[in-house]
């Protein structure tokens, strides 16, 4: 995941949305379960935006760091929930993941809880972030043995 440097007041939410977007359905169900253990049963907030599938245009940059261009689209699922106190729970996920988008929006809203949110975020998000980092490292580790160790042959034909 990218280092998040700004803006500081949004940093925790930005981080947890990035982690939740990459979590599996089972992980999200477990996270919701953990939150319910703490807060008691959660009433389903109302849908401000029902889960829907659409696309995002992925942009690249010429030469990697030049002017932006449109590379192609990707499927995206989004969902927005409105809690009774006005809080919004929001989900934008890569791919077509309707059920997951509801879970992410719900968890996002619950983690914004004034009283318990901060502690919940630590307990819910950190294990998910660790699992995510482990999966990523496992994928990267497989390429490590393909790293090239160059050595240079010294030309020698017996002459001094």
């Amino acid at each position, binding site marked *: 995941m990218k280092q998040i440097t700004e803006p500081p007041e949004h940093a925790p939410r930005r981080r947890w949305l990035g982690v939740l977007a990459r979590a599996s359905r089972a992980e999200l169900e477990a996270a919701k379960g953990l939150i319910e253990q703490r807060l008691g049963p959660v009433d389903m907030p109302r849908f401000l935006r029902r889960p829907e599938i659409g*696309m995002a245009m*992925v*942009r690249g940059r010429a030469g990697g760091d030049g002017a932006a261009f449109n590379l*192609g*689209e990707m499927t995206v699922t989004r969902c927005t929930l409105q809690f009774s106190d006005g809080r919004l729970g*929001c989900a934008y996920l890569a791919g077509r993941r309707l059920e997951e988008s509801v879970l992410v929006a719900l968890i996002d809203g619950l983690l914004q809880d004034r009283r318990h949110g901060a502690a919940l975020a630590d307990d819910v998000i950190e294990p998910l972030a660790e699992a995510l980092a482990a999966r990523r490292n496992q994928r*990267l580790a497989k390429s490590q043995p393909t*790293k090239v160790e160059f050595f240079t042959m010294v030309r020698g034909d017996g002459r001094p």
Partner: protein
Amino acid sequence: MYVAVKGGEKAIAGAHRLLAEERRGDPAVPEISLDQIEQQLSFAVDRVMSEGSLYDPELAALAIKQARGDLVEAVFLLRAYRTTLPRFADSLPIDTADMAVRRRVSAIFKDLPGGQMLGPTFDYTLRLLDFSLMAEGKPADIEVPMSASDPMPADAPAQMPRVTDLLVADGILAAETDDGERPADITRIPLSFPADRATRLQALARGDEGFLLGLGYSTQRGYGRSHPFAGEIRMGDVAVELQPEELPFPIEIGDIELTECQMVNQYKGDAENPPQFTRGYGLAFGQGERKAMAMALVDRALRAEELGEVATSPAQDAEFVLSHCDNLEASGFVQHLKLPHYVDFQAELSTLRALRAAHAKRAEAAE
């Protein structure tokens, strides 16, 4: 001229039934699943996503299954599907310097920071048919390169700088410039000429790999020579960030796999600017190395005018390249020749008959 012709409905229904039967093949052979296509035919999936211009491995696998492995037909299916979806947002430009790199090679520097990693490549394979893959039910001896519990080596860099960034820092490669303008989008406003670089890159990114490969090859053989070096090729996962309407900040929505190619090409300089290498760029969904390389060659060729070169070859002609690189359009126009042209042909036929009659008369008169 097209005239409505009726009467083929039964035949068409029959053809569709036959197509479905042939798609399934021998019922005694197990049906192929989308998971199998996605996992075991991943290059086909990646190509269909790139040229279909929609990143969704599962849908690409479905398109391949439905198209019986005809990848251009699968591209058509994916493009048709994308027209049914709303576009929620444009992503922030992805940052390939931040890629979780699984393959990275450079043909210009042996020892580059972060090192070279071959990754899962066909390069250096012997290209001999591997009959062990024919053995059914016996899992092939896969040597697992590193067990899942092995930690990443401590010296594995989290980020790998792009080789081109190092060259630019040295001043020997032309830096890219960003005017911050919103890039043109050929899915919203059709291609027109002259086309700026963002437009060209979008068209090339969804262009047919075979067509671009041939054009890239033509530049190497002398038709618009640009003396390319593969500065860097990298493949891996990149985070996609977008700015939702509901939030005051952008968020990451997941990762996609990309292949990037940076070509470093012959140098340019003038009275004001000292000579510098020039560059061509390729980017493809998934593991699309051949495509990314071909795209980079053609991108560089299409910069001829901007770099003050005389454009004399097909690969340097933007109108020629961009108008013909889309395999959906090309396939559609070529295949439309199968549609009834009965009236056109009757017109041609009567003209030809009249000409032949006149010819015969003249020949008779000459005798």
